[in-house]
């Protein structure tokens, strides 16, 4: 499964990966792999209308330095994709 994690999500990707390895143990998902995409913080400047990447605690416009910007990306904690691979032996799925 693929997660997108931004620097303003409040989640530390390395800790999440470690917790995932513990959480998957002895479950139906024990072979599941977690892939984390680190998305950068991106701001859109209200003044000059351009998008720039920014640091989590310095979100001002990378071009003109104005602080009136809109965050376009960087606070996401998003499940983007799940790749389902069939088991060697067919699994009988039960709903719910």
């Amino acid at each position: 499964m693929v997660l997108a994690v931004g620097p303003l999500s409040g989640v530390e990707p390395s800790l999440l990966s470690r917790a995932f390895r513990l959480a998957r143990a002895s479950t139906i998902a024990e072979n599941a792999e977690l892939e984390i995409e680190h998305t950068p913080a991106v701001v859109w400047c209200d003044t000059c209308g351009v998008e720039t990447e920014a640091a989590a605690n310095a979100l001002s416009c990378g071009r003109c330095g104005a602080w009136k910007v809109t965050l376009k990306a960087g606070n996401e904690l998003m499940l983007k994709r799940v790749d389902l691979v069939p088991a060697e032996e067919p699994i009988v799925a039960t709903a719910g």
Partner: protein
Amino acid sequence: MCEHCGCAATPNVVHVSDAKGTVSAKAADAVSVELVTGILHENDHAAAHNREHFERHGVLAINVMSSPGSGKTSLLEATIDAIGDKHRIAVIEGDLETENDAKRIRAKGVPAVQITTGSACHLDAHMVHDALHALDLDAVDILFIENVGNLVCPASFDLGQHANVTLLAVTEGDDKPAKYPVMFRASDLVLLSKADLLDVLDDFSPDRAADCVRALANPAEIVPVSARRAETLHPWTAWLDERLAACRNGEALRPRNVQSPAGLVAAE
């Protein structure tokens, strides 16, 4: 072939039936399910439910956050003294252990529900929902939710509140907003608490604190207050009055971190 979308899934692939995204084949023996689902969806759903409760009863809900010892409970006591005769107040207290804070609030004649989180370092929407059952929301104008003292995790969990208020005590560093950007980016109002001590502290600059908040692209007002000086509370209580009036007017008030889910915008 998959009957949902015609992809090349083999019959032994378990299909995710409620996926909102498109389903496509990655390889002959695997399916890729594009989801773009917020991991905190479960909490967000409960938060939206809480918000419906608040709005149905005309209750303004304020999430009060800060590091431990910044004076959240003292500020709420002083706020009750200041506006308790004008507005009906209730408080939900979040702490790891003890009923102490709830007792302090009840001593002011205001209903208070204590949530003891055990070792959990923040409140979530489900805990708040459970606490709401102990309150008569028809008898409440303003509900303060005093979060666990912590500048990290509380910022990531929507509780259903209308606004986030963060206290930064002037005994702390004025660069705390730069150190805890997720929290201070989420703040709709920053209160510089214990401001009566500014005269004797030469290392806290309200301007530097404000610069750090602006660097997070946050236009929030930054207001010095002191629980020991009733006259300093006026901008804070006026801010509350404004929001209560807006809430009663049916305006959909949302905290900053809820009104702009940037991840969704970016994923479109």
